[in-house]
């Protein structure tokens, strides 16, 4: 009597027989037939031909039969939309049924039928069900809104279902709240811009109340939703944390991890001096450890997240090293993750234990795991200096086992140890040399050759060793060939007498017999170096090398902070921001940790953001000192950041001719600039020059002095805006603005290094643009930019570059290069930087030109809310090179006639109508090139309103 009977077929043809049974009069037979149909469906057989017959069975009192038919409908309605209409009536009727189970079932099933025609009929029943007296129906209806939104988003918005759904967040039943949150979150995901989950302290409170009472799955939805909220201060953050903490003891690991996410994020706002902060840290460890005793699949996800947590707050798990020890029957994916975390947690205190474990792992069966374990020993040596010696001796023990892949891996990591601690462990070289013959992997061979070359003076038979490699030079991989070339050159420089022949041989092999351009070029470089100036060659080749950094595999801090906001999601498993892999690249909103609020107890004042700074707007996490400086400057100037004319977009544009144009050539020029003439005008000099230059009337001069506190000259300077966020440029953040002072335009840049490594070799290049803007000097960053350092640079510009009309007109595409990569961004420059000083037109000339320009070139604009009088307007504009030529008073209105000239010689004439007492001005612009009018108007707005 099992269901397997439904799979048996008869000779007559299954479909035919089923059809007959479905139309049988006997209820029991019908039901059995539907079950057979469902069974076929589950294994992927196509039974859609039976659609009308199955739908006929729908009108029944038997709930099981009804459910089965519904199951069938959901699967096949899409392929038979016309037939599906037949079912609508029954659905609508069932939505009115006295039994809430049936009402819910009907509305639930209807939502799953992805046929447009049906969705129209769905709206009315859905509206009723959303307000149903029974919470079970309401919670089902909430999910149904999400389904409907997936099918027809417009319909959902038009019908106002989103608002109803938002109301359900305040429902009395926690299950309804949870489902409403889940539905809203899903809808919000496909519409990142819509502000659906508008969280405020009241709604947060409701969510927190519902959190305690709803199902485990509901708790996950609510916690994930809470994580998107930014508390207004540290008190609110603390009170939310307190109410979320009990979730850490939940049996469902997903609830635990979501709670961890909320806590990790809000902790950012708490002061480290708070007792509560310490308590919270202590509470986080046990649940994370418990996650590791769950099923391996759960462990894997937990470990990937713990990897992030350990990087962000190593103190949480620093005493829990042992739980990450590998059991031999863990799945390989768990083993590798555990190993990674072990290295991150390794410290002087536990290194002995860790090493003993790693040595144990190196004798396991799985080759990948063994290799990683050996590598881990090397990483420990580099990370924990005190342990280096032990690590080296452990590695030597492993080399003695003579297991081929262990030996090779060990040699690769010993090379790294040498690079970290030069001239310390060369006593082991003899042992390494013994294993020379067994090395067959390129990486290991290259590592060994590097060691021989680097320590050639201490290895008696270095020449013989290297010579032995040289025999099969052409069969080696490029990596080994390059290394061999360098090693022999090093050897030659150290022992020139005996090795002349050898170096000749390798140079000719590399330059004449190889078709690999890298190898050939390196060969030529060495050759020329050696032949022109052996002393210089020695200085170059045997120069002291920088030590390798402690940990090379840490995640960049900005990315790490973003990922912390994504704990428990796929992003945390892949350690990539969702924008990097989410399907279709729907404009994913970047999440960021909240800035620590300036609380009175806080001692870390340099780290705290100024009170009132908009939280969550900036892509960076805790503003570094450089930002603070920028912020302070902004405060001087007026309202913070985001000035309208400097709207930036970091659009990734194609590499256009920016690269071709030769950042490389720029690079070549750079060394000359270093230490040479200094193009960057120091601000003090500029001020002096400005004061000396007679511009305009004395009145406006005075005006300049009073207004120009932070600006340096009369021309209005917008506050710096972030042009290139660190996230898009591997840690380099660029913000900037444009200025015009005494006839010269410059681009004021602020470069901040938010990466872990030092940045050098900066260069900048503009794409062709509407007004031919181009850098007048190379970008000069005098010292390498170390992590977390900020540098301010003023880059002089000229307008003699090549011209290409851009859309919009004032768009400027910029490429910036450093030692890491080339980055592109584009920005809009305010047009007034192009207004030249000799833009004052003669009166007669003005009249003539005004008449001359056809009327269709005249454009009118409104400047609103500008409470200045004509005098002030005139002087303010004049400081930005918009000159008032005449002033008339017509019927109580002040008419200002003004002119300005752009760098490319285009004249723009303006008539500004000001009515005393009315803050709205009317601006009429006339110009032979009317496309600039819009931007001139924007310049007017910007100048007048700042």
């Amino acid at each position, binding site marked *: 009597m099992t269901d397997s009977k439904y799979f048996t077929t008869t000779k007559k043809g299954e479909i035919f027989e089923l059809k007959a049974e479905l139309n049988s009069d006997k209820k029991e037979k019908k039901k059995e037939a539907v079950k057979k149909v469902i069974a076929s469906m589950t294994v992927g057989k196509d039974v859609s031909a039976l659609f009308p017959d199955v739908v006929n069975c729908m009108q029944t009192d038997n*709930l099981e039969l009804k459910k089965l038919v519904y199951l069938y409908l959901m699967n096949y309605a899409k392929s038979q939309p016309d037939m599906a209409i037949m079912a609508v009536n029954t659905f609508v009727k069932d939505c009115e049924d006295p*039994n809430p189970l049936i009402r819910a079932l009907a509305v639930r099933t209807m939502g799953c039928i992805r046929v447009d025609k049906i969705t129209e009929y769905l709206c009315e029943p859905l509206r009723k069900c959303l307000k149903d007296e*029974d919470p079970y129906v309401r919670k089902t209806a909430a999910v149904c809104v999400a389904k409907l939104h997936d099918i027809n988003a417009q319909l959902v918005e038009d019908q106002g279902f989103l608002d109803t759904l938002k109301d359900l967040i305040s429902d009395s039943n926690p299950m309804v709240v949870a489902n409403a949150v889940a539905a809203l979150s899903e809808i919000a995901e496909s519409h990142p811009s819509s502000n659906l989950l508008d969280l405020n302290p009241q709604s947060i409170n409701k969510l927190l109340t519902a959190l305690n009472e709803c199902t485990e*799955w509901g708790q996950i939805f609510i916690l994930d939703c809470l994580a998107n909220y930014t508390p207004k201060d540290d008190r609110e953050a603390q009170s939310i944390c307190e109410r979320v903490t009990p979730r850490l003891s939940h049996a469902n690991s997903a609830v635990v991890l979501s709670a961890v996410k909320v806590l990790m994020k809000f902790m950012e706002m708490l002061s480290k001096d708070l007792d509560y902060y310490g308590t919270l840290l202590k509470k986080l460890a046990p649940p994370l450890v418990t996650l590791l005793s769950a099923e391996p*699949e759960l462990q894997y996800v937990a470990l990937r997240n713990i990897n992030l947590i350990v990087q962000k707050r190593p103190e949480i798990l620093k005493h829990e090293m*042992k739980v990450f020890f590998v059991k031999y029957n863990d799945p390989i994916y768990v083993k590798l993750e555990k190993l990674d975390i072990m290295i991150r947690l390794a410290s002087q205190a536990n290194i002995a234990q860790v090493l003993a474990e790693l040595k144990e792992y190196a004798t396991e069966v799985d080759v990948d795991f063994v290799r990683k374990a050996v590598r881990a020993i090397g990483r420990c040596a580099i990370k924990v200096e005190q342990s280096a010696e032990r690590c080296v001796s452990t590695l030597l023990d492993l080399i003695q086992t003579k297991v081929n892949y262990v030996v090779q891996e060990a040699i690769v990591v010993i090379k790294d140890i040498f690079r970290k601690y030069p001239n310390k462990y060369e006593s082991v070289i003899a042992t390494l040399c013994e294993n020379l013959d067994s090395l067959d992997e390129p990486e290991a061979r290259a590592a060994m050759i590097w060691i021989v070359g680097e320590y050639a003076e201490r290895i008696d038979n270095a020449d013989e060793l290297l010579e032995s490699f040289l025999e099969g030079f052409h069969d080696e991989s490029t990596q080994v060939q390059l290394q061999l070339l360098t090693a022999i050159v090093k050897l030659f420089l150290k022992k020139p007498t005996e090795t002349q022949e050898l170096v000749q041989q390798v140079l000719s092999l590399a330059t004449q017999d190889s078709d690999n351009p890298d190898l050939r070029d390196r060969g030529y470089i060495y050759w020329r170096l050696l032949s022109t100036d052996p002393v210089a060659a020695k200085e170059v080749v045997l120069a002291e090398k920088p030590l390798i950094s402690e940990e090379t595999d840490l995640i960049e801090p900005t990315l790490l902070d973003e990922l912390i906001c994504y704990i428990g999601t796929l992003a945390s498993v892949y350690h990539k921001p969702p924008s990097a892999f989410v399907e279709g690249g729907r404009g994913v909103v970047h999440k960021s940790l909240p800035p620590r609020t300036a609380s009175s107890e806080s001692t870390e004042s340099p780290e705290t953001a100024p009170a009132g700074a908009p939280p969550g707007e900036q892509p960076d996490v805790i503003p570094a000192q450089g930002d603070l400086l920028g912020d302070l400057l902004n405060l001087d100037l007026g309202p913070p950041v985001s000035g309208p004319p400097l709207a930036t977009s970091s659009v990734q544009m194609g590499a256009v001719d920016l690269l071709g144009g030769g950042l490389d050539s720029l690079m070549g020029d750079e060394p000359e600039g270093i230490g040479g003439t200094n193009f960057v005008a120091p601000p003090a000099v500029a001020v002096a020059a400005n004061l000396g230059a007679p511009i305009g009337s004395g009145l406006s001069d005075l005006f300049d002095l009073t207004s120009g506190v932070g600006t340096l000259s009369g021309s209005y300077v917008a506050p710096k805006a972030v042009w290139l966020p660190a996230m898009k440029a591997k840690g380099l953040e660029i913000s900037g603005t444009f200025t015009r002072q005494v006839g010269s335009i410059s681009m004021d840049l602020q470069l901040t290094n938010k990466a872990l490594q030092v940045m050098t070799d900066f260069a900048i290049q503009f794409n062709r643009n509407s007004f031919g803007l181009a850098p007048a000097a190379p970008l000069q960053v005098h010292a390498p930019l170390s992590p977390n350092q900020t540098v301010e640079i003023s880059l002089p510009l000229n307008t003699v570059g090549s011209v290409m009309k851009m859309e919009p007109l004032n768009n400027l595409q910029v490429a910036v290069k450093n030692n890491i990569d080339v980055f592109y961004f584009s920005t809009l420059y305010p047009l007034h930087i192009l207004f030249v000083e000799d833009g004052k037109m003669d009166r007669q000339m003005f009249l003539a030109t005004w008449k001359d320009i056809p009327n269709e070139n005249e454009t009118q604009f409104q400047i609103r809310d500008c409470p200045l009088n004509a005098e002030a307007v005139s002087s303010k504009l004049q400081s930005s090179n918009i000159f008032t030529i005449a002033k008339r008073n017509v019927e109580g209105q002040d008419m200002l006639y003004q002119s300005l000239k752009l760098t490319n010689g285009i004249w723009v004439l303006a008539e500004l109508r000001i009515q005393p007492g009315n803050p709205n001005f009317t601006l009429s612009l006339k110009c032979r090139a009317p496309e600039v009018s819009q931007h001139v108007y924007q310049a007017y707005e910007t100048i007048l309103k700042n």
Partner: protein
Amino acid sequence: MIHSLFLINSSGDIFLEKHWKSVVSRSVCDYFFEAQERATEAENVPPVIPTPHHYLLSVYRHKIFFVAVIQTEVPPLFVIEFLHRVVDTFQDYFGVCSEPVIKDNVVVVYEVLEEMLDNGFPLATESNILKELIKPPTILRTVVNTITGSTNVGDQLPTGQLSVVPWRRTGVKYTNNEAYFDVIEEIDAIIDKSGSTITAEIQGVIDACVKLTGMPDLTLSFMNPRLLDDVSFHPCVRFKRWESERILSFIPPDGNFRLLSYHVSAQNLVAIPVYVKHNISFRDSSSLGRFEITVGPKQTMGKTIEGVIVTSQMPKGVLNMSLTPSQGTHTFDPVTKMLSWDIGKINPQKLPSLKGTMSLQAGASKPDENPTINLQFKIQQLAISGLKVNRLDMYGEKYKPFKGIKYMTKAGKFQVRT
């Protein structure tokens, strides 16, 4: 949320598919098969597999892969937890979870899956509620259904679904009211060559079987609650009460459930009840190796160790073993190289041992790796952490229930390195 579910057996056949949104073609599983091929063993298939348009999250249990398909950013733990819940539910419904059983009950399986998720959102995952909605098949019910034409689908809204205690249905009645609690502790440990403990931790659970009439409100207190500093509770436990008084206060679900699980990791609290003396040696020159292990009791608090089974994966180079046990039976599979020795009880006066020789591949060098010994055992009437229940009280109902508590210690992942 969760789009679809595919059940795949170990030979790579998709034997069941269920879609909660639009239908996802089963060809998406090809990516899974690729990963499966790459992983040498079924256990090593990575649980998260990206494909160009979907993500495949899988769990492997009872030799079946449960593969969930998701399209958007969904918490992977949520999906994996849910999949495990599906497996638990199947087991609960059908006793075992295997391909033939699922095929035999395909309609019930389908109905249950439909109840568990709606549009990919979890709907009813509590076994209590599910069983009210869809009754589990029993032979008796199948017979009755066939005769009377009634169904196995409940037509009433499950009462617990929306109450403040969603885990318990109302109107429960029993003639014998009883509440049993099992304290089960598993020791996970790694012991090194010399016999010293590298890591040891206790994973404990309290499983309950409560059959009480009405709405009983129970409190359970411990002699030494301080042991429990890392705990996960069933949703029924009142967290506040635990925080302030260290007392478990709860309205229990009806039937079997896990009241709490806990974790004791402080090294000094974890007693190791057995020791293994081993001498496994390979010699370079000879093709014979020596093998000898002895198992003995250590800190057992006077209790007997039962059900002892020793297993060990021998190195590939071992061709065969010729061993004599002092008690119990042993087997060695020359193909998988798995040695298994079923000892039974340990008699402290006469320690069980297994001695003999291993024949190695002639001429080959001695194996690189040393075998790890896996131990299983049970100790009745003992919670190795020392956890003791003080008393169990019932409020809210008038009758006197029958109460019982049982302790047991087992080996979890107990490994001895050689």
